């Protein structure tokens, strides 16, 4: 791990209640990060998201993300807006044929677990429409 500053594009998903905490303030003050917010939706009493660039050393970014995760905030490094809720997904596999890029795919034949690879998602939103369990949502 180098101490050279690097920039990561991140997306933070906030659960219902954490939106009022001054997380960004702490990222800057306690973890020495340069923060550039692109897009945000933070409404009290609702789920919210932040799309941002953070610049700092890898170590500081790692520590900052550990801090962010203590608020039950989901951190997503691909900046993609489509989220698959692990708790809600039943791994039925119904969404797979509708996903054009195989971002949703079977992880292995024996367990038949359905994996989601954010990096491959093109945000076509097909899975959001078809998932019978409401497991896929989009932040935007």
């Amino acid at each position: 791990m180098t101490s050279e500053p690097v920039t990561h594009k991140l997306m933070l998903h906030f659960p219902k209640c954490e939106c009022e905490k001054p997380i960004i303030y702490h990222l800057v003050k306690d973890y020495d990060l340069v923060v550039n917010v692109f897009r945000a939706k933070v409404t009290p009493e609702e789920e919210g998201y932040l799309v941002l660039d953070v610049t700092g050393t890898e170590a500081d970014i790692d520590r900052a993300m550990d801090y962010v995760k203590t608020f039950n905030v989901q951190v997503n490094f691909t900046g993609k807006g489509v989220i698959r809720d692990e708790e809600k997904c039943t791994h039925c596999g119904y969404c797979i044929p509708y996903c054009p890029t195989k971002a949703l795919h079977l992880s292995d034949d024996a367990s038949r677990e359905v994996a989601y690879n954010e990096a491959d998602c093109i945000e076509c939103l097909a899975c959001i429409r078809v998932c019978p369990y409401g497991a896929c949502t989009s932040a935007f």
Partner: protein
Amino acid sequence: MKTYEQINDRIESGKAVVLTADEIMDYVDKKGLDAAAEEVDVVTTATFGPMCSSGCFLNFGHSKPKIRMSEAWIEDVLVYTGLAAVDVYLGATQLRHGDPANMYPPGEFRYGGGHVIEDLIAGKTLQLFALSYGTDCYPLRELRTYFTINDLNQATMVNPRNCYQNYNVAINCSDKTIYTYMGQLEPNCKNANYCSAGQLSPLLNDPLYDTIGVGTRVWLAGAQGHVYAEGTQHAGACERTEGGVPTGGAGTLALTGDMKQMQPEFVRGVSFRGYGISLAVGVGVPIPILNADILKRTCVRDRDILAPVTDYSHDYPQKTGKILKQVSYEQLRSGEIEIDGKKVNVGSLSSYYKALEIANLLADEIRRGDFQLTAPIAPLPKNVPMKSMIQRAKP
């Protein structure tokens, strides 16, 4: 040869040999059928998928003053009140009041009976609104209150039809997208959906109903429930393969269990876009290995189980009885089947992953001595076919 008593004794002493229906075939191939039949006590089977014929009876206890509910809604979902004063039946497919359904197709059906059942079991606080015409003994005429499952006297799941032995593979031969209880089907046979745990499914492992019958104790979403009757549309008389495995619908089970003992991850409301609401429930059924024949039938593999590919744009709704093709679950699970020389992508509505989890949970419960097996008090009928409705113009 073993008896239920012998198997239960071994379960009680923590010595029972239990395998899942996913493991048993390789085990028998290795050990030989007769040796394995001596050794293995129980094979666990399971399924997790949407089953519309589901619901529950709830008893609220009495308000002060008392009410004889004549209409009632839980979270704006209508429940049936044609029972005693504070008893209701909540059906899985009931829509929420004001849901536009398919007025602007395809409807989304985000919340309904199945979701109320899911929320109840998850321990959420729900709203009850009830009306009454008022009587001398039950004077209250309107009631709004908030409750959780713990406030209820009884919350009993009663699913008239579960665990379909086998099922159709749905496809759409028309030129426009259709929305069905088998999911969204793209035009010109672009995709197909199936709904069965195949080689792990309870009635496919006991195809002739040797051990599963009325009274069989089952694992119902984590609770110990039981089979209370043959399921609705149970039709044991059907076409079968040489091994006795039905090549279409066939048998079903009617199940009941205490919702207060259930685990929320195994009871899930389902929204089918353009179709409606349903409920997915996890069921595990133990099969006692009383003899080698019973064991042999639990060794069924996906490649030996055939399902009928049916056109849901015409043949299913118009009840023509036409089947395009039989395909095996092995083919279905590969994610691709061939229809008229064309490759068709396949998706599943039933979760094999969850079914496997349930089969293992049940196996562990039996190994720990926490789940005893019961012999059926009556068998499921084998020779009854499914009737169609007779539509009469005059009485």
